[in-house]
């Protein structure tokens, strides 16, 4: 009896779990892919944030970088920071490393009723100092608070302002709108 039961049990074969057909797997795979692509397209189309990410951050930058692969450091800085950077770089290139440069009043950089070439960041001493480092800047507004004011050995000329601070005369016909000049003539680089 036991032997018969054993023999019967040996004949019971457990079937492996049925696997979906290859076609079904492929179909599911393709449908999931289509869904994934559609999801990203919908996100980029109907959400301003993802739209901005795709158009501005990815596409525009990709196109720009491909169109201007040989842009120099100076061109990039001017492109991003405009005339403020150009002027500060001009100061850096035309003064020695130990120069203390007197900057004009804030109202000269950003006049109230006139369009300015500068952006408001130039009024920040920390920001401007970064571009002329290790040179030191002292602003007209620091006249009473900074001990460096009296030690300034260069003067930043902005919009023809600053010539009157020089101890020597600069003829009107050679004056330029933007410049940086030494307090003492012997300091001319």
């Amino acid at each position, binding site marked *: 009896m036991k032997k018969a039961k054993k023999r019967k049990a040996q004949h019971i074969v457990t079937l492996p779990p049925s*696997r*979906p057909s290859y076609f079904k*797997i492929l179909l*599911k*795979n*393709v449908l*999931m*892919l289509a*869904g*994934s*692509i559609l999801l*990203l397209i919908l*996100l980029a189309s109907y*959400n*301003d*944030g*993802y739209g*901005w*990410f795709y158009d501005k*951050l*990815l596409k525009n*930058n*990709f196109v720009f*970088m491909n169109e201007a692969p040989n842009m120099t*450091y100076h061109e*990039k*800085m001017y492109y*991003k*920071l405009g005339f403020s950077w150009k002027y500060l770089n001009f100061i850096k290139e035309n003064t020695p490393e130990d120069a203390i440069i007197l900057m004009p009043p804030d109202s000269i950089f950003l006049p109230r009723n006139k369009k300015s070439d500068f952006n408001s*960041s130039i009024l*920040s*001493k*920390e*920001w401007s*100092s*970064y*571009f002329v*480092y*290790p040179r*030191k*800047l*002292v602003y007209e507004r620091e006249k009473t608070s*900074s*001990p*460096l004011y009296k030690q300034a050995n260069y003067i930043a000329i902005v919009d023809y302002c600053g010539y009157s601070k020089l101890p020597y005369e600069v003829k009107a016909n050679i004056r330029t709108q933007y410049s940086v000049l030494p307090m003492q003539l012997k300091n001319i680089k």
Partner: protein
Amino acid sequence: MKLIGWITVFFLGLSIINIIAYRIKAIEKISFAFPIGMGANSIIFFIFELLHISLKSIDLIIGIELALGIVLSIITIRKMRPVFSFELIFKKNVLKKSGMLNLSWFFFMGVILFVAYIMIRKSLFWPIVQFDSIAGYDFVAKAMATEGTLNSSIFNSENPVYSIRSLYPPLAPINFGFAYLLGHTSSQIVVLIFFLCTISSFYLFLKRNSTHLCAAFFTLLLLITPEYAAFSTISSSNIPCTFYTSIGMLCLYTWFTEKDQNYFTIGVVLMAFAVWTRTEAIVFAAGGGFMILLDGIRNKKKIPLLIFGLACFAALALWQWYIKQILHASFAQPVLDHITWDPEKLGRMFDQIKHVTFSTVYFGVTILLFIGMVVLNIKNIFSNRDQVILLISIFSTWLLYVAVFYFINTDYTSSSMEGWIFSGYKRGMFCFLPLILFYSANNKISQQVFNKYLSLP
């Protein structure tokens, strides 16, 4: 020199991980190596600074780091006796999984790689032009690389040119300075490395409990979060802080749920480095501390909490001491000097917080997805306690983070906002993104969708 410098930092990070958390996966070690190496790098620079050794001695510093890495590696090899078998690695990790050809996974990974490629190119194409970095961390870095000390001329009392951003903890500025010392023209590479490590580490954490498809989808969601993506290619300390806080929290959560001591050690180190990057990361330390406290109460253990608390406090206190005693720098902190209850201010602040937090322009669908997932999982949260500790940690950390903004000395009217919420709060939210996406991917409903309906046999 550049290559030697970065390989040394990577090697140092890897050897530290091998000493403190040998049992974690090799791929996780690779993903964490740079951030841990850069954290250690900042500490070695800081020790040099305290010993009055010029930080310009870059050859000496790299030599010491290399020697330290070799010593730690020898200790690891002697202690652990690892078996290197190419066949084992190949068979285990590649061949067994090569049968899985999920087209959606390939699509998401393709998009991730393409987006990452453009981010890398953009990051290395543009010079540093961000106001906060120029008037802050990058200026400190540049001066450090030129003068060979953190206590540079920008902190000179006669002509101070530092801002409050210059007084942030030194991990980011030191590594920015390290990049300049190696000969880079921009320190942007540091932010880029942290960004890539965040993405890869996040994928690996998601993959622990879910499918590759789920990990790829949620990693892509993190990568394309508009504001986070925009910041990933510009110079700031927010991206390094995002790595340390979020991955640190995920390590502690993994330790809490899986009882793997290796993740506790890594979590403590990452959280201490977070505080060493930005002071406000201390609120995340509190969130991580909550998990350690809970585990301590359950198992009657005090030591882990003590170690964690000491590590974070040491990072915070050391920098504050340095600012006061060495730099002699001060900047009027814009915080209230006494506790007041001002419901109108709170109302105005929450209006702005609501506007920023739920803005799909800033954070895409991530926040809404998270809220939706919490609502859908209400039953699982209360009956099965699904991810409840993670949720409590996220919400308690967020409340602490919001409280910090309440104590800022502003009334949040339109005339006095000063960008606290629209700038500071918004960037700080980056640290929450990996955590909330981790929950969105790992809750019961998502798991069911990805493991049952979106899996291929």
